[in-house]
């Protein structure tokens, strides 16, 4: 909402400067986003007094003068205006001023006489077209005072951030009401400059239909409009608006169109009531019908666009077709033009939801729809009608023909809300005495009865309950008036979300491992088995990701395009799957992607060819990372990293036997120099999205925190271990884990550790086989193992491996 500082002053005689007003409005009413100083081109102009005046010796129309511009010395100024008079004050442009018309004032000689500055006319200042000479001022300020400060020609636009709950602030009247309250000044509706005197007969009231002059005005069905007023004005002369009106509209960021439209816009900004003038000559009937649009109806609106209408939209139609989209925009056919002689002035009040639906469906917005969808005071319509009519008659001539009509509206008894002084104190944390409450509320138009029963004014539809009144008390008193004192509190009954704790633990671990956390956008190109966004920002990112690793892969490509190929990326975030339930299935995941060097290069790194493969991350690092992430996320659980049959997945991660994640190669759109990429993705559990309890009810569960998993102490062995190595020829079809399983089974409880320490393929190893070497460590908790015990196990293992897996000891 753009507010004119000067316009506000017409309502309230306050003394605050724009900056002071900004502070007050922001503290008590609504935030001032910006102060825009208008007419700053006039900032150099000062008030000056002509001290001496004499005719120019070499001219028959010029005058030489001595001017006091507050500089301490009198300036010589040559002036061509016939009305320059000693002793009078005028606006003065000192040397160096850039005038609104682009002229730069310079010190120069005019026919031999020095002229140091210029006394200005209204036209030269862009303040009007009068050419009677320089602008004689009737102000009592010392010479040198800035012109903008001495006279209300300058203005400041106050850009007010009005919340959706305060439509009453969408007018100067509404803002002025608040200013009057906080500045403790009186509020009055200003006299209308240039308004005509009219005799306005009492309105003809009817629930559905009435005549205004010869116009049949009717409302087709109930519920379409809250109030519909109209009046006929005949014999207007459409033309430009006077300067003051043009300036007022400019000050609020609105453009002058013609005197009729401007009168309507003026009252919109003054009272917050949109009105619309139809060219009566263009209305068939003549009649005005408020009705639903019919299917297939179209209307070319004032902005020149053809709009397809539907039955949910209300139109203002004549006998034949729509002439305006109610509350949103008028039609071009019945627009007021230079040829217009008679007008029908509509002043209506529409249901906010209907207007909002219509303007959204039409994809357009206007000053009118903005106000209607927030709610316009239903009581302001007759005031607005009278003011627009008086302005039209004053500016464009003509006369009101017949009585206005006033349809649908029935006055309602004012709403009352009881307010409890004690409740104010409880909620605000500081007691506010009843009489102070009454004064505060009274200052903005609430009528406070005894026992704090509060009558709600018609313009405050937002105040629906006691708590709304408490907010009024708090803000009018000032939020700053409430003390800052930390008071005792009871400890929360809610423990930390377990997934949050898990995520934090995993994040800390991964960062410790040298990984970098990303927070990318979760949208992907997707496809049929993805969750689709109905109204996506871009068609190529219209789906929600099913995998967090997918996001990391795209971000890895982004980094590769910037020549960054050593990547250790991770993210903890949501992935989504389509579901038959009300919402998609959502799961919290951790994903990690590694590629490139496993550590920064160092001069001592081995440079042999076989080392080249070691230098970069490989699948074995990914396998380790997968296990580490799982063990960190699920402490105490059994973690298995198992081989899969799917080609793109290297390993499944099982947590207590349940498939929970994967380790895989990641296919990237990568340059040739890029290393292979490997990824890990692990679920941290579903995000429950079902209803916690039925609406309006509470489950009121007691929080049960998961007990931390602890590993108990086991006595450390004091007996010596025995170990032996087995170098085995393992057929390629036999997995190492299968061999290990046999070793464990045959060895029994004394086997402490099985460690694969070598793999060899090449000369000396039979084709279709590889040589794998394990070290087995045995220990008895109480005694030293005998050689025979170890030997027996060794031969038992070898026999079992040979019998069951055709795995033999490698010789030579």
């Amino acid at each position, binding site marked *: 909402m753009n507010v004119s500082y000067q316009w506000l002053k017409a309502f309230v005689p306050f003394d605050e400067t724009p900056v002071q007003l900004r502070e007050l409005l922001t503290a008590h009413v609504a935030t001032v986003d910006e102060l825009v100083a208008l007419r700053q081109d006039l900032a150099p102009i000062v008030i000056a007094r002509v001290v001496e005046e004499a005719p120019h010796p070499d001219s028959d129309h010029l005058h030489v003068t001595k001017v006091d511009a507050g500089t301490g010395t009198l300036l010589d100024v040559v002036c061509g205006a016939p009305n320059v008079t000693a002793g009078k004050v005028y606006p003065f442009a000192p040397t160096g001023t850039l005038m609104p018309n682009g002229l730069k004032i310079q010190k120069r000689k005019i026919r031999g006489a020095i002229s140091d500055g210029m006394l200005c006319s209204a036209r030269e200042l862009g303040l009007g077209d009068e050419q009677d000479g320089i602008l004689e001022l009737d102000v009592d300020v010392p010479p040198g005072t800035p012109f903008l400060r001495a006279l209300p020609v300058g203005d400041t636009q106050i850009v007010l951030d009005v919340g959706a709950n305060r439509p009453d602030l969408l007018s100067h009247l509404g803002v002025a009401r608040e200013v009057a309250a906080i500045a403790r000044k009186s509020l009055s509706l200003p006299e209308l400059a240039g308004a005509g005197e009219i005799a306005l007969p009492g309105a003809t009231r009817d629930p559905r239909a009435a005549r205004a002059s010869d116009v049949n005005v009717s409302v087709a069905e109930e519920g379409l409009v809250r109030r519909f007023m109209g009046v006929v004005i005949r014999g207007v002369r459409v033309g430009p608006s006077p300067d003051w009106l043009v300036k007022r509209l400019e000050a609020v960021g609105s453009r002058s169109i013609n005197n009729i439209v401007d009168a309507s816009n003026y009252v919109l900004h003054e009272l917050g009531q949109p009105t619309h003038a139809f060219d009566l000559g263009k209305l068939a009937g003549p009649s005005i019908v408020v009705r639903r649009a019919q299917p297939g109806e179209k209307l070319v609106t004032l902005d020149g666009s053809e709009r397809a209408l539907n039955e949910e939209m209300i139109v203002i139609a004549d006998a034949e077709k729509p002439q305006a989209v109610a509350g949103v925009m008028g039609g071009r056919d019945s627009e007021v033009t230079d040829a217009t002689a008679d007008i029908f002035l509509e002043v209506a009040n529409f249901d906010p939801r209907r207007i909002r639906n219509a303007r959204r469906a039409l994809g357009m917005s206007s000053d009118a729809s903005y106000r209607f969808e927030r709610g316009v005071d239903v009581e302001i319509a007759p005031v607005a009608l009278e003011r627009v009519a008086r302005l039209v008659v004053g500016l464009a001539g003509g006369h009101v023909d017949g009585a206005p009509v006033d349809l649908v509206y029935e006055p309602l008894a004012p709403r009352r809300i009881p307010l409890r002084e004690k409740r104010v104190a409880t909620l605000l944390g500081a007691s506010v005495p009843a009489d102070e409450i009454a004064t505060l509320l009274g200052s903005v138009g609430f009528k406070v009865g005894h026992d704090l029963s509060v009558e709600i004014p018609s313009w405050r539809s937002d105040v629906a309950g006691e708590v709304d009144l408490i907010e009024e008390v708090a803000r009018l008193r000032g939020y700053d008036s409430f003390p800052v004192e930390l008071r005792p509190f009871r400890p929360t009954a809610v423990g930390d979300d377990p997934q949050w704790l898990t995520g934090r633990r995993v994040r800390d671990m991964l960062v410790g491992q040298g990984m970098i956390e990303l927070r990318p956008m979760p949208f992907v190109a997707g496809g049929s088995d993805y969750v689709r966004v*109905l109204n996506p920002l871009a068609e190529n990112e219209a789906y929600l990701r099913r995998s967090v690793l997918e996001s990391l892969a795209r971000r890895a490509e982004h980094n590769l395009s910037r020549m960054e190929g050593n990547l250790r990326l991770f993210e903890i975030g949501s992935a989504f799957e389509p579901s038959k339930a009300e919402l998609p299935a959502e799961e919290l995941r951790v994903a990690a992607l590694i590629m490139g060097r496993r550590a920064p290069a160092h001069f001592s790194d081995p440079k042999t060819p076989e080392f080249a493969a070691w230098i970069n991350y490989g699948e074995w690092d990914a396998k380790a990372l997968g296990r580490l992430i799982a063990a960190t996320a699920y402490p105490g659980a059994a973690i298995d990293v198992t081989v899969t049959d799917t080609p793109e997945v290297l390993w499944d991660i099982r947590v207590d036997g349940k498939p929970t994640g994967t380790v895989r190669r990641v296919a990237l759109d990568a340059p040739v120099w890029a290393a292979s990429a490997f990824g890990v993705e692990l679920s941290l559990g579903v995000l429950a999205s079902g209803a916690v309890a039925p609406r309006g009810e509470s489950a009121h569960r007691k929080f049960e925190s998961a007990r931390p998993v602890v590993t108990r102490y086991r006595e450390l062995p004091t007996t010596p271990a025995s170990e032996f190595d087995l170098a085995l020829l393992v057929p390629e079809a036999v997995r190492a884990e299968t061999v290990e399983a046999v070793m464990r089974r045959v060895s029994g409880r004394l086997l402490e550790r099985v460690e694969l320490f070598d793999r060899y393929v090449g000369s000396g190893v039979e084709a279709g086989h590889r040589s794998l070497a394990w070290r087995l460590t045995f220990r008895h908790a109480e005694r030293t193992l005998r050689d025979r015990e170890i030997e027996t196990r060794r031969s038992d293992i070898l026999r079992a491996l040979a019998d069951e897996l055709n795995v033999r000891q490698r010789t030579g």
Partner: protein
Amino acid sequence: MNLDQYLSEAAAIEREGTAALSAATDVDALEAARVAFLGDRQGRLKSLQESLKVVSKEDKPAAGKRFNEARAHLQSLHDERKTVLGRARQVGAKEDLSLPERRAWKGAKHPVTLVIEEIEGIFRELGFTVAQGPEAETEWYNFGALNFPPNHPALDAHDTLYLEGGGLLRTHTSPVQVRTLQRYAPPIRVLIPGTVYRRDFFDASHAPAFAQIEGLCVDEGISFVDLKSTLNLFAERFFGASRTRFRPSFFPFTEPSAEMDVQCGICGGSGCPACKGTGWIEILGSGMVHPAVLEAAGLDPERYSGWAFGMGPARIAISRYGIPDIRILYDSDVRFLEQIAGPVLSGAEG
């Protein structure tokens, strides 16, 4: 052997032994010198000791004394050198130690995470725990339960991404307020960090998905003074000792509603471009929980009251780290993320 011969022999052994022991540059060489001079079997002092037998009886005391001197000298020199060389072996070769160290990759938390963790830390001290909820939400949890009237202009600030098959992407973390209030009985003090979505096109200050962090406190007798005091304390901790102000605002789910500003850290309140000349920087929205929200969650608003706040860690991150464009946060360039995480490297790459 006469005494002169013996004494000159002893002096020669002492001189040569001193030279050999001093010349040894490692423990092995020192040991070789020790064996040569102090060795029990073929050491030269051993043979000098043997020679004592052939010195005449009257010269023996003088010769013996000289022998002892030589042995004591070489032994102590050896011991001293052994300590020095042993220490040197622990340090290793004294090569060019200005060469760069071997480094490991340094990890990095995302700047938004750093901000969230700092906020979390402050509110933990104030007795808050963390609550979480889904990002795909129902209309009721996201709007209805939070007192958004259907089809109200208040929805304009929540341009929503809707999902095929039902539901929407939550536009704020506030649905978790309702879920928490429905799930547990007060007293409730929870902090709710999470990702939220708006149908905002990417630009220098907007992203369609971004982090929000929200707090909720509900119990008997909670007041606006509690709201002000707690948030004020937070601002002091988080931004340093700067002044705050509270101004009226509007959120459907709070009443009264207030926005909190902190004094602009750049101009100190006198007004500058960073604070649009106002001297204040907008930090968070807050308010007393609207009775309709408590009722929607099955709580009696006559018995319970509370306050809530919400803010954007990404906004705080870009101002804190001086990031000119919010897209940089989501671009995921590792050079940026490593930079914010702090210096890792010395020399060449630093």
